[in-house]
């Protein structure tokens, strides 16, 4: 790691650590902002009182208890922290793609709290992400929901209230369409087609059903009045155990799906086998099957318009998000990238042009909607009394391209403060040899 980089990260780390309390969240009063609450409309010139990480009061002219830090945000816009429903940041390793079925490979075990993407996310007002196992194989491992608590240990980033989700994937990545075949390289992995993909997923679920039945039979006998003396438990299978949890309803499916037919087939498969799909990822052709998605109550987590980067994204039109939102589908806009994550608000704004969403509807795509998709809408996703104080402050309405994120707060603690960052950067330049020579500005 370059020395200067280490210095900056350390500096920022101290910044965060200094203002972050270990257990209960922070307390502060945010004054005079234009509040875009998402669920309770717009409040002009209003305050938010945060105590121990929770929003306690919202309204005009609130009084700060003595000693409470006050942040004046006059002329600025205050929104709930942005939530990214689909990323792969803050992980040491994304894909266990050596085999088609790897539900045991849990990304929650490899959370990397030092990934600078966390800082990037914060700089765009993002406070929470669903960080996922990659799309290289049909059934990958469990994903994890994290708060962007830069400078805190990885276990403190994990959001325990969120649904447990398991990654599925369909399409070109799974069938390795875009893989360069190398002489002496690994042979093609089954499946190589969309029909094969569907078949392996069905096969694994049917095996998991048998596995589940085995265990139920065993438990029934074991707890009976007269357990047979020769009774032995079935063999534990760490892969089928995870899928059994999906069938038990303890986990929900999050499935990368691109073209309409495969998306529809996975939906039908979930009905046939009886598991819940929380969300389709990317779902480029959702607009082609919008009624089926709305009826099945399955959401989509999509790009605003990043398309045509591969064949299955060739019909991924910019109207997809807005059109599906208007037709009863729960839509979120995701980044899938450590860079795009900092301009998710710009991406959401595009649905106003393509799809005709209003300001509030567009803002919902990156706040309350992803919160619902992750099962955390009771605790975050809007500015409401009792919710966790995950808050972002913008210089203008975040649906304007001229707006800039100036502050990001998680559970009452300030994790990103642009003013302070700029000040510290200038000081760092002043004291650096290059700065003294006038080589840096």
């Amino acid at each position, binding site marked *: 790691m*370059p020395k200067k980089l280490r210095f900056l990260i350390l500096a920022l780390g101290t910044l965060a650590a200094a203002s972050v309390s270990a257990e209960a969240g922070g307390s502060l009063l945010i004054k005079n902002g234009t509040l875009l609450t998402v669920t309770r409309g717009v409040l002009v010139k209003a305050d938010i009182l945060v105590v121990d990480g929770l929003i306690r009061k919202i309204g005009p002219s609130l009084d700060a208890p003595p000693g409470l830090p006050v942040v004046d945000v006059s002329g600025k816009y205050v929104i709930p922290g942005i939530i990214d429903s689909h990323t792969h940041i803050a992980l040491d390793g994304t894909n266990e793609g050596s085999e088609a079925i790897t539900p045991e490979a849990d990304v929650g075990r490899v959370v990397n709290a030092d990934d600078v993407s966390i800082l990037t996310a914060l700089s765009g007002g993002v406070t929470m992400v669903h960080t996922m196992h990659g799309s290289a194989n049909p059934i990958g491992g469990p994903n994890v929901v994290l708060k962007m608590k830069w400078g805190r240990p990885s276990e403190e980033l994990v959001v325990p209230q969120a649904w447990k989700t398991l990654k599925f994937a369909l399409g070109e990545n799974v069938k390795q369409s875009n893989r360069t075949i190398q002489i002496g390289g690994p042979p093609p992995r089954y499946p190589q087609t969309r029909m094969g993909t569907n078949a392996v997923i069905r096969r694994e679920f049917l095996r998991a059903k048998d596995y589940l039945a085995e265990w139920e039979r065993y438990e029934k006998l074991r707890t009976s009045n007269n357990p047979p003396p020769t009774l032995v438990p079935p063999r534990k299978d760490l892969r089928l155990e995870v899928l059994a949890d999906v069938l038990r309803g303890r986990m929900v499916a999050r499935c990368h799906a691109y073209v309409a037919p495969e998306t529809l087939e996975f939906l039908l498969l979930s009905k046939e086998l009886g598991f819940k799909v929380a969300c389709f990822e990317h779902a480029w052709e959702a607009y082609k099957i919008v009624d089926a998605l709305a009826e099945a109550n399955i959401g989509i987590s999509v790009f605003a318009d990043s398309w045509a980067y591969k064949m299955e994204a060739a019909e991924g039109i*910019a*109207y997809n998000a807005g059109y599906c939102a208007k037709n009863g589908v729960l839509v979120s806009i995701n980044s899938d990238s450590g860079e795009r994550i900092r301009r998710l608000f710009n991406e959401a704004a595009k649905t106003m*042009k393509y799809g005709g969403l209003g300001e509030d509807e567009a803002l919902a795509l990156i706040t309350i909607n992803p919160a619902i998709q992750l099962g955390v809408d009771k605790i975050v996703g809007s500015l409401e009394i009792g919710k966790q104080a995950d808050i972002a402050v913008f210089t203008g309405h975040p649906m304007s*391209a*001229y707006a800039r994120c100036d502050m990001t707060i998680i559970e009452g603690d300030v994790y990103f403060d642009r003013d302070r960052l700029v000040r510290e950067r200038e000081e760092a330049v002043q004291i650096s040899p290059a700065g003294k020579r006038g080589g840096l500005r």
Partner: protein
Amino acid sequence: MKRWTVLVLAAFLGGGGASAQGPDSPVIAIRGARIIPVVGEDIPEGTILVRDGRIEALGKDVVLPSGVEIIEAKGLLAYPGLIDAYAFLGLQEITGVAATVDHRETGRFNPQVRTIEALRFDSMHIPIARSNGITAALVVPSGGIVSGRSALINLDGRNQRDMAVKPAAFLHVELPALRSGRVGAMGTRGGGEAPPADAGRILAEVRDLLNKARFYEKRRAFASKNTLLPKPMYDDTLGPLADVARGELPLMISVHSEKDIKTAIQFVAEEKLKAVFYGVEQGWKVAGELKEAGIPCVIGSLYDMPPVWEDGYDALFRNPGLLVKAGVRVAFSSSSATAAKDLPYHAAKAAAFGLDKRDALKAVTIDAAEILGVGGLMGSLEKGKMANIVLADNDILEPRTNVVHVFIAGRPVDLSNRYTELLDKFKKKGS
């Protein structure tokens, strides 16, 4: 029918050059719009008269000839069409499908290739870009050290030759990127061979080529005068380089790091070339030198991470503002085909981080035009200029804004595109 024949003939005969005048461009009056000429003051409510593909008159009171077609534009804003100063439009359909990608030739020196000769004029990305207010683009080659020659095109026309404003606009030279491979959509880095790291060594090779081209030209000139001298064998790479050496073909150098920018400035001065820089991610660190050298800059995509973390998380966003503040002329670019429509948002992002809003607009209109050598032809709403006009219901740099009408070379442009076609198709079908 007759008109159509003339039109088809024109398409066949008109080899290249500006497509401003056409028998099919009607006389149009755009009435009642707030006119934002970009140069000079806004006209709160005015009229633009368009004839033969040009702006014949504009102002508060314009006398309209009889029989003119009137576009009522009250409540709308009239802008000059936006110009994308570095794009792959027409050379790339599906990024990941090699069969549809034509902007990157193999090998290190390809001055002989011209993007206009591969430009797919019916690319699905072109109507999407123009329906977002972009009316012209520099379509560039990439890869190697000398990538080839770009073309400046209008985003409407009967074929690529009809669209061409400048069929050979720049010769492109690429210096090493700041990182080996850029971060892709999926957070992955591009594979392939790492480029040679030393800009000085690369430019020395280009210098050799330029000298070779100068000598080659001399030998050919002498040989044509004196039959006793052997004529040097035709070399397709040296012709374009000779054009560059003579200052007839400007150079666009992709240059990214502070150190390389300094090296490139020196190279341009020593070789006495006409040059524009592209990318320029660390330009803010040498803004004074750039200003001094009078080299304008086409800013690369802002959809990227800072080149090095020490520059700050917002380095790319602040860079254009700092350059303009130092007096450097800048233009924005999409650096893309699939996201070419996002050009205005790059400008707005820079405006969120210090660039003046008016300067942001200029950097996608008049300043872009001047950097691309067509400042007299487009980039502003002025009498005599090509009628590339956009009518929008709000600020053209905002994502929420709807573009209502687009005129390119005086012709009204159909705003339907791949997005709208697919949406319409499945709206009817349902699920």
